[in-house]
């Protein structure tokens, strides 16, 4: 961890030096507040979510800057990153330092809902743009919303529940028991999915909360087993989901009950292995093998990271690029002007088609229902999903009319 920090400091130092000595060839229009556009990627570099975001997210941001051309208004675009260790207070300290001292203009990724809520709150206070991709709590655009600085880009707990929840209840899975990670994200996911299940005519029989990063899920699974619910909803993420699924298959839970992983990305499927994960339904905002554009980007990413990207990595790339384009179009890095451009411009890239950032900060784009392939159906490494359905953005995300965001109700 220290090594990486040291390294990133060195890289930043090198970037600053090179920016200082670079001669500016062409006169450029537009001006950044402090001459330089600087973006921060705040993520979990070494903990349970490091494969979910982590170094891959930093690489995705770097690729976006490179694809943009590396320069804004004649100066090199700078990138800093930090490890928040999944602690909201650490995240808040780093972000505060970024905004106050290091003149960071916007932060990206911000996974872990507790972290995201803290960082978005700080962005609101300091009037800086914060783009959340990895965190999923729907509170970010409801109770904790910040329409003038915060953007929630990838998925949220409402959309996750909507897509998988509806599909499963329709399939006959009408009684649910939740296995919930005991923090902001898990609680949101349980509540939002539970609401969908109930609205669709299903029942929620109960839930059990487990601490973040639990290695042994067997006893929680026994409780789920005892509930006799048809569906055991995993309201957790990352390594916790992986371990839950392993334990479930070991304890024979999958014989009489079905698992629904409410937030599972391809990196998790890879970790569990197709043998255990086959047949699972899951929701994602992006998959590398959807079309030639996604495959091309994934190939470039894989060349650098030696593994395929997940939807979070793709959305970091997309959001950074969208931000940079907006700064260029606005001709300034002023928060209000850039945010307006970001909201006015539809997002059309390899991540989303016709994506739109709503006034509450929610980026609305299509979501996909996938089923994990059987080992026999998978033709190549990372060939894991069969597309089962596409849900239009308007249907997947919470309608603006239901928003609990106080700032919008003026």
């Amino acid at each position, binding site marked *: 961890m220290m090594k990486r920090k040291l390294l990133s400091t060195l890289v930043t130092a090198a970037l600053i030096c090179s920016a200082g000595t670079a001669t500016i060839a062409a006169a450029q229009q537009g001006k950044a507040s402090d001459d330089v556009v600087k973006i921060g990627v705040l993520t979990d570099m070494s903990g349970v979510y*490091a494969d979910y975001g982590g170094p891959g997210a930093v690489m995705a941001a770097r690729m976006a800057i490179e694809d943009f051309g590396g320069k804004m208004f004649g100066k090199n675009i700078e990138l800093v990153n930090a490890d928040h260790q999944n602690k909201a207070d650490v995240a808040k300290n780093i972000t505060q330092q970024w905004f106050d001292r290091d003149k960071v203009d916007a932060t990206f990724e911000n996974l872990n809902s507790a972290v995201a809520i803290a960082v978005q709150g700080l962005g609101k206070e300091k009037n800086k743009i914060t783009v959340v991709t990895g965190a999923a709590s729907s509170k970010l655009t409801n109770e904790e919303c910040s329409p003038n600085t915060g953007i929630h880009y990838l998925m949220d707990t409402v959309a996750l529940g909507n897509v998988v929840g509806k599909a499963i209840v329709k399939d006959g899975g009408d009684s649910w028991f939740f296995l919930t990670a005991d923090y902001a994200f898990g609680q949101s996911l349980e509540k939002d999915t539970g609401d969908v299940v109930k609205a669709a005519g299903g029942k929620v029989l109960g839930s059990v909360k487990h601490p973040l990063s639990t290695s042994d899920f067997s006893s929680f699974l026994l409780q789920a087993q005892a509930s006799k619910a048809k569906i055991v909803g995993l309201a957790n993420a990352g390594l916790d989901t992986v371990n839950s699924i392993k334990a479930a298959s*070991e304890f024979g839970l999958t014989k009489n009950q079905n698992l629904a992983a409410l937030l599972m990305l391809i990196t998790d499927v890879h970790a*569990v292995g197709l043998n255990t994960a086959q047949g699972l339904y899951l929701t994602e905002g992006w998959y590398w093998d959807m079309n030639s554009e996604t495959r091309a980007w994934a190939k470039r990413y894989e060349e650098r990271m030696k593994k395929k990207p997940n939807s979070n990595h793709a959305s970091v790339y997309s959001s950074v690029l969208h931000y940079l384009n907006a700064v260029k179009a606005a001709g300034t890095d002023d928060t209000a002007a850039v945010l307006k451009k970001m909201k006015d411009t539809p997002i059309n890239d390899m991540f989303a088609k016709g994506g739109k950032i709503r006034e509450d900060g929610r980026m609305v784009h299509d979501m996909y229902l996938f089923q994990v392939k059987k080992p026999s159906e998978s033709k190549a490494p990372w060939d894991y999903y069969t597309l089962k359905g596409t849900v239009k953005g308007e249907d997947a995300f919470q309608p603006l009319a239901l928003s609990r965001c106080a700032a919008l109700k003026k």
Partner: protein
Amino acid sequence: MTEIFGVPTQALMGQLMIGLVNGSFYAMLSLGLAVIFGMLNVVNFAHGAFYMMGAFFSWMLLNYFGVNYWWSLLLAPLGVAIVGIIIEKTMLRWLYQLDHLYGLLLTFGLALIIEGIFRDQYGVSGQPYDLPELFKGAFDLGFMMLPKYRAWVIVACLSICFATWFVIERTRLGSYLRAGTENPKLVQAFGINVPLMVTLTYAFGVGLAGLAGVLAAPVYQVNPLMGSNIVIVVFAVVVIGGMGSILGAIVTGLALGLIEGLTKVFYPEASATVVFIIMAIVLLIRPAGLFGREK
């Protein structure tokens, strides 16, 4: 169905069974720690890293060399022990005369380095390790399904723990070891090679951690963080049992596994903390630990 405090007996029995499985892992890890502390006076913070290394070695043996589970039960701990010997010979041995703190800092640093290397190479999501064919499936105990593999873990851990206890407390070799730690000079005067004995003890201790890692590989995800997740609990177990007490380590390991299992039934949110609450209480009442002797 009968209930105890509102929890069906069946569920309770199931939880206790699982507690026993986890307790077995705790017992085996804390046993290694206790042996090392007892003989070397080193607080081996790298224990979790060796446990993780054991799991990774067995994963590597399977995936790179096609070596099956049974052979890796032997080979992986051996590999871990060799790493242990190198570390003891080159680094740890210089610290025996110094305060515990130095050994603790060294091993803590080593743990961070080892974990960092594996994390850099394999990421944190970990690698799947399939169950050996023989252990697929579960026994139906009436009140719960007990996966065959977990039953094997209990049997294996308990036999290894008992064997270790027996060797150290009841055999001639064990008596040399114990004497060597009490008064190394005197024992050396009898013609026994104490430094070699100490090296082998360390190798054995970390080998045990490696073996626990191999046993854990099919149950948990083989991932670089698995050691740091468990090592803190294991330290609490050793502290509660009494530093250096072998019997204490085994009994407390099993008991804490059970208590943790019960907490998961009655108040799951506290399951990660209950061990430390117990530790705090034990330290207040019996600072030397439940089975430790005051010096």
